[in-house]
């Protein structure tokens, strides 16, 4: 088994939006960052993976087995965090554990209690009194306590303060130390993914724009800067997208090394994932 999760050719049509032939994989031992603007199709894709929506086309495999057949069994080994959907507000962590211990075959109550202590979460307080960060931690504790091998997290760090965010990112890195584990994180906070992701899959308007290794992405792409008058010297087909300022033009290029040879007089800087995302969206709109 190479992949923990494999999504092939996923299609789903809504009135105003559709997922078109989405492909996505989470290899063993890796963190895959799933990026895209709000409404690009990240949550819809994740919903299809967990079986909350029925796609029109496509094959989804968890641990090399199609989810159509025995998705309940396969869900024993995944931990999913969806924003805003959880137990009813009056539940305490203790009650949640009580319910889930009957649902998960590998539920480890000692582990759960130990993690509650580690994250300083009160076991008997209703979750409506929890902050967003505390809820997120509780969701992660649940995933760890049933021995999940694959975490699927929809916007896990949005709305959290930097300290909690870093704490959680560190937990992700610790989780991935086991080579049989993997994480799919959807996020529009690309700086978080820059820190931890091994692969980046970028979705825009329901279509996958690219899937690349994060290091390649940062190494290969470059930000070309030139004055407005020099812009004519550029071959537009080399540019993925560009931003025209009053005096300066910034353009995103692929194959940084090659471009440096082709345009030796131009300055080509390193680029962040956020900028890559922005230029792709802008370039495609034009």
């Amino acid at each position, binding site marked *: 088994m190479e992949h923990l999760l494999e999504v092939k050719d996923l299609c789903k049509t809504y009135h105003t939006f559709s997922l078109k032939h989405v492909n996505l994989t989470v290899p063993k031992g890796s963190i895959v960052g799933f990026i895209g603007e709000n409404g690009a199709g990240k949550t819809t894709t994740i*919903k299809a993976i967990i079986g*909350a929506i*029925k796609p029109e086309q496509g094959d989804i495999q968890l641990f090399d087995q199609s989810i159509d057949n025995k998705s309940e069994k396969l869900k024993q080994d995944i*931990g999913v965090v*969806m924003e805003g*959907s959880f137990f*009813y*507000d009056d539940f305490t962590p203790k*009650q949640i554990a009580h319910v889930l211990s*009957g649902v998960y075959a590998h539920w480890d109550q000692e582990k759960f209690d130990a993690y509650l202590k580690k994250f300083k979460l009160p076991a008997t307080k209703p979750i409506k009194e929890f902050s967003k960060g505390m809820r997120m931690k509780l969701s992660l504790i649940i995933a760890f306590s049933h021995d999940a091998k694959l975490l699927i997290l929809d916007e896990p760090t949005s709305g959290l303060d930097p300290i909690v965010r870093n704490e959680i990112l560190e937990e992700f890195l610790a989780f991935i130390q086991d080579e049989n584990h993997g994480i799919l994180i959807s996020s529009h906070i690309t700086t978080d993914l820059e820190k931890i992701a091994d692969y980046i899959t970028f979705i825009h308007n329901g279509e996958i724009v690219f899937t690349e290794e994060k290091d390649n992405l940062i190494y290969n792409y470059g930000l070309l800067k030139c004055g407005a008058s020099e812009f004519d010297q550029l071959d537009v087909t080399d540019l993925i997208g560009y931003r025209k300022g009053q005096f300066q033009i910034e353009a995103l290029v692929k194959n940084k090394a090659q471009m440096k040879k082709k345009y030796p007089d131009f300055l080509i800087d390193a680029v962040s994932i956020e900028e890559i995302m922005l230029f792709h969206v802008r370039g495609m709109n034009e």
Partner: protein
Amino acid sequence: MNSLILKDFISLKSYSKSLAIIIGFFTIITFTNDELSFLSGMIILIMSMLPITSFSYDQHAKWDLFSQTLPVSRKQLVMSKYVLGIISIIAGAILAILLNVVVLLVKSLEVDVWYLFLANSLIALVALLYLSILIPLVYKFGVEKSRLLMIVVLAIPSVLAIGLSKAGVSIPVLDEITPAILVAIGLVLVVCVMLISYVISVRIYMKKDF
């Protein structure tokens, strides 16, 4: 599936206080007006609404989506609501019988347990029938719209019954059979209706996107 029912009961815990107050209130009223069947009817009706209440808690927490992340099937989710309803209604009937006995004893009236059992069983069967109609409606239209449908579903048989009796139509068979046979026939009927209702609910729920 036990865990799913447990989850519903924990959700309903905060609701149980108001439930106890309402039932206490009706019990006190019964001391003054001696309407034992009214007390039974109210308790069992209120208890039969517990699954519907649990649906609104579910909606509030977006449980439908969250439950999809758990290793439970949609069939189990639907089944758990029916079992919750059966448990609630049976518990309601037992509670109603006990409170009836209490009222009768306090007023030093004769306690006919067999009669109480039959009368409350009949009410419980009606409640199960009612619930069997409601649950698929909730799955189809959502819990908010179903609150209105609840009243409609309750009103139709009453209107029919009143209409029939006004028109002078009587069902002679009903006058001849004993209450025990009525309960037995009712039980068979309710089991059939519930099974059909369950199959319909599963079909609706299987197709849903969250």
